[in-house]
């Protein structure tokens, strides 16, 4: 585009995680490290997961008929999307909703694991594969459940429940889905291809089928809880976390014209995909992206909300990249928010952006989450927080960075 890129603001945040429901609860819970993470330890033993806080979904999804059509990951997503629309002052405004574009990061819907188990047991005794088709599946599979399994149906349900209809896109690909979604939203707003975008994702970590999928690649942490950075040399792995994280991303002019306040400015999002066939490629990719986006920025302390998962290769190379910022005269102050909220996969990058926006708005950073470790140092108290780097490195593929800054007209 020949024209000057438009300034991109975050004007709404919707969060539902293991530690809170809504923006205010998150600001408090993320500061209160004395209260440990909210873990489910027994149900999926030996794996622990960060379990969703109790949520009354009907506050955002009033119709029972809608709720019945959704599995839990969709409820979490539709709920947090509603919170974001509400927060941005768009909910219930038909003229704005019709102009709101939707970009969702999604995985797959949930399988009925009880049915799967029943089928597998039956196959073990009968060895007749037709048993599937003839006897069990037709009665056990429900049409509504199948719809809940379609990846784009989180977006579909958000359109139906909240009337967001300008356009609807779903990106897939684990952590890359979240990075792609936010990047697509920001680039379209910056280029004037959209003015108002609802973007985010959701994960229900309390799912048997999902845990099996992650564990095929031996990606789960299978011991008792440890913060992210302390898992790298102790077995590697991520602890999934249930979460919904949605943002309203808006062109500054559009926000100002309707009197909407910003949390923060989303300066840019960049992404790439290192091949990971040789050690060092992830770090090289992150180095390259950082140099591109921070060229001309003043050196000094830089707050980093790291989306590190705890999967050894990815997180160790990210840490090497962050440690190396010293050579560029930046002093990173790192917080791996996954230590607190779990790794939320598709939702993880939007979640990091939301937490960064919240911190920039409040003017302060989060405390260290690396208890007993050495990676996360206290934030040097020198004026209000004015910039945050958000990182996202996929547990098996993809990496991205977001550059965020404080705006003058904050909400707090």
């Amino acid at each position: 585009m020949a024209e000057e890129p438009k300034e991109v603001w975050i004007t709404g945040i919707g969060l539902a995680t293991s530690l809170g429901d809504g923006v205010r609860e998150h600001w408090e819970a993320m500061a209160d490290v004395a209260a440990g993470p909210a873990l489910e330890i027994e149900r999926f033993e030996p794996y622990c997961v960060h379990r969703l806080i109790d949520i009354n979904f009907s506050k955002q999804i009033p119709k029972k008929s809608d709720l019945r059509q959704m599995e839990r990951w969709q409820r979490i997503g539709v709920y947090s999307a509603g919170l974001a629309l509400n927060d941005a002052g768009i909910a219930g405004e038909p003229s704005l909703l019709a102009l709101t574009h939707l970009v969702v990061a999604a995985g797959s819907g949930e399988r009925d694991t009880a049915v799967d188990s029943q089928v597998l047991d039956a196959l073990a005794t009968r060895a007749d594969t037709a048993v599937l088709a003839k006897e069990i599946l037709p009665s056990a599979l429900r049409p509504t459940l199948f719809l809940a399994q379609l990846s784009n149906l989180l977006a579909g349900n958000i359109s139906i429940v909240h009337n967001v209809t300008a356009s609807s896109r779903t990106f897939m690909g684990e952590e890359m889905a979240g990075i792609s979604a936010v990047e697509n939203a920001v680039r379209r707003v910056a280029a004037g291809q959209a003015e108002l975008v609802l973007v985010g994702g959701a994960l229900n970590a309390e799912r048997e089928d999902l845990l099996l999928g992650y564990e095929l690649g031996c990606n789960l942490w299978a011991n008792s809880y440890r913060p992210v950075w302390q898992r790298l040399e102790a077995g590697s792995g991520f602890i999934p976390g249930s979460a919904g994280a949605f943002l309203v991303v808006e062109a500054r002019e559009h926000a100002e014209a309707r009197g909407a306040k910003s949390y923060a400015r989303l300066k840019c999002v960049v992404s790439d995909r290192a091949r990971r066939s040789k050690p060092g490629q992830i770090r090289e990719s992150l180095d390259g992206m950082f140099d591109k986006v921070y060229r001309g920025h003043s050196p000094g302390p830089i707050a980093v909300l790291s989306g590190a998962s705890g999967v050894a290769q990815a997180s160790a190379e990210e840490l090497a990249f962050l440690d190396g910022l010293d050579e560029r005269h930046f002093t990173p102050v790192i917080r791996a928010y996954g230590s607190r909220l779990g790794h939320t996969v598709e939702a993880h990058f939007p979640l990091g952006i939301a937490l960064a926006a919240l911190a920039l708005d409040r003017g302060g950073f989060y405390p260290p989450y690396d208890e007993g470790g050495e990676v996360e140092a206290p934030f040097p108290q020198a004026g209000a927080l004015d910039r945050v780097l958000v990182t996202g490195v996929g547990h098996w593929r993809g990496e991205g960075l977001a550059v965020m800054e404080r705006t003058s007209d904050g909400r707090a």
Partner: protein
Amino acid sequence: MMSGRLTDKKGRPAVVVTGMGIVTSLGWGKQENWVALKNGRCGIKSISRFPTDGLKTTIAGTIPNRPGHTPENYSACDLSLAIAEFAAAEAIEQAGIGGAGSFPGPLIVATPPSELEWPHLRRLYLANDDKQQTGYRGLRTAARSGEFANLARHVRFAAIADALQSRFGTLGEPLSVCTACASGSSTIQFAVEAIRRGEAEAAVCVGTDATVHREGLIRFSLLSALSTRNDPPQRASRPFSRSRDGFVIAEGAGALVLESYRHAAARGAEPLGVVLGAGEKADCYHRTRSQPDGAAIIGAITKALEDAAVDPEDIDHINAHGTSTPENDRMEYVSLRSVFGGRLSDIPITSNKSQIGHTLIAAGAVEAVIALLSLQNGIVPPTINYRDPDPEIPLDVVANTARKVSMRTVLSNSFGFGGQNVCLVFAAEPN
């Protein structure tokens, strides 16, 4: 060589298509497909890949064998990748762009559902010796052994895009997209947007779906979406006919190389056609049904025409979504009628799904390739099995045999479960 300006009517970079590839139930590659399409052949057949006893629907548009490729030996994920690779290679080769294993732009992939299939679950089940661990707990224990790491690709949504990127050396992070049955069209829309933003000079768009397996058939059957007219299979898919009773699930892949006209012209590449515009509108009515007044579909068509800077009068041919379900074809007609008015009856329309079935996630890309081949050749492939026109949806259907049509501008429709609607406007030359 195309004349015309390097920017479109709105001053944005004009986007051209310089390479195309396709795999469907009719064959592998443009040549096999175009000959079959033109001659009104049908790729739908009785399923032989797995036993179909107990199933209400026993037909599908499955990919035929080819030396080096035996689809029945593949999982859905692997077959989806194999046909995507073939189509992308064909498109990139035709475009003559980049070097071996190095494509100068991003990759955008419409990627099918990723999940473990029953044979995979069964392997995990049998591998766990500790029968005290029931259900998924036992399966996880088997997974923990690390012996099944090669199954991880089946549950990773980025896996197909990742493998394609490794093969073709595209730039940046590949996008994996799902807007249900509009996904293939979405990839083209996203590439157009990126080129217009000046982020990319070229992009490879791929839609692929090879998920004909037993559970998939049962699921769509439960939605009452599939035709049960199993005999003869070639007669089952009958878009716009009064007797239509559902779609026929099918496999396919389509790939397109999109480029800024400037970039193509600079390297002397011959454009095969132009993507004038794209339009998208989400429905908020129901998970599987459109708003009764067609508002979202009308919105997508109108936005596509606006984006392309063409009037309804400019559209010479419509490549319909035309699934052959009672609901879709009626809603598509109602919406088209609202946009095109009385002139609709003069616009030749066809549904490729009569010949190849519904390739689901891939459909938008597969049918974009066919729409562009139609433009290039001045021939519209027929809607076969059009023997009892539905009087409620009077259209100029290209019935049963191909028709020569003088075309400059073509509309291609794709509508998805979940309410995502994407329409594309292609032209022979920039406007």
